[in-house]
């Protein structure tokens, strides 16, 4: 491997690594229960829950590792962890 001067790398380049393949449980979103509080998107360590303009959230299954924090912390049980089917 050739190393760039100063070991410089491109910003955000970890995106090539699709960590969604790590997942054992998948967050399943019950939109009808969601109160748009934004707790899930704030907490996600993998920036894989994003609030949309209307306040509802979308999950990025390309990267979500299935840690379950969003589901555990959701005040309205609007996120359920279900076994991943591969």
């Amino acid at each position, binding site marked *: 491997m050739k190393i760039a001067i100063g070991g410089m*790398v491109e*910003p*955000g380049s970890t995106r090539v690594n699709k960590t969604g393949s790590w997942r054992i449980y998948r967050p399943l979103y019950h939109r009808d229960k969601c109160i748009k509080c934004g707790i899930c998107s704030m*907490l996600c360590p993998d*920036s894989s829950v994003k609030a949309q303009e209307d306040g509802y959230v979308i999950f990025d299954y390309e990267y979500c*590792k299935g840690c379950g*924090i969003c589901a*555990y912390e959701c005040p309205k049980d609007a996120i359920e962890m279900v076994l991943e089917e591969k």
Partner: protein
Amino acid sequence: MSRLAPGHRGCPGCCDAMAANFVLEAAGDDIIVVSPTGCLEVMTTPYPESAWEVPWIHSLFENAASVAAGIESALKALGRKGNTKIIALAGDGATMDIGTLGLSGAFERGHDITYVCIDNEAYMNTGVQRSGGTPYGASTTTSPTGKESFGNRTQKKNMPAIMAAHGAPYVTTTSISYPKDMMRKVKKAVDIEGPCYIHAHAPCSTGWRFESSRTVEIGKLAVETALWPLYEIEYSEITGVKKIKNRKPVEDYLKAQGRFKHLFTKEGGEKEIAKIQDIADWNVKHYELE
């Protein structure tokens, strides 16, 4: 506001990633981040990739504060400091053991930097060895529980007190389980001129042995039992404290984690738990938490 890009190699539910995200959200985009060696550095930047989208530098395990101070001095000398914030994001091992000398020097000289210790209470990146941040009674790979041993024999070092003794304009504790508290304090610190120190408690599911989904809950229990008090210190005076209503017994915190399991299964464990309760009681008295 930028956060870490996805695709980093942090464990599912990584506390270091959460801490970094809160700092990034609060501090804005005009920042330069320094990370010493540790989980945050290793998992965000496996060469030739990086999860950072702000200027970021890693040099060594022991010199994050010195590198941050050097960047600040260089920008000032070049007349290019402007409003750019220089932030070090470092582990407890990097901060409370190997990097303390450089950190103390940087605060003594009064550089305009914000230093955040992400305290997951052991050397996680090399396999959970004890550090000066490991609490009394925790089992780690270098303070294992066994026939005679009840885990770590030393108390958690009071690092914020050491930093406050430098007379810094702002020293504070926080926790990744209180993102709003943490973001408010980061914002306050970066806006203050001079060296500021933030000590963020960060429950690590891998090292502390609990389900990753409970990361936030465990951090809240540390605060609710008074084992991790939240306070602010300005120029060596305590100026803010988060009061605790209906304090919980330390057992509630300890029993939720594998690293303390032996305290509940081994004969004599109650005595050790009582010692840990004493630490919480001392915190309540000392920081007037109730």
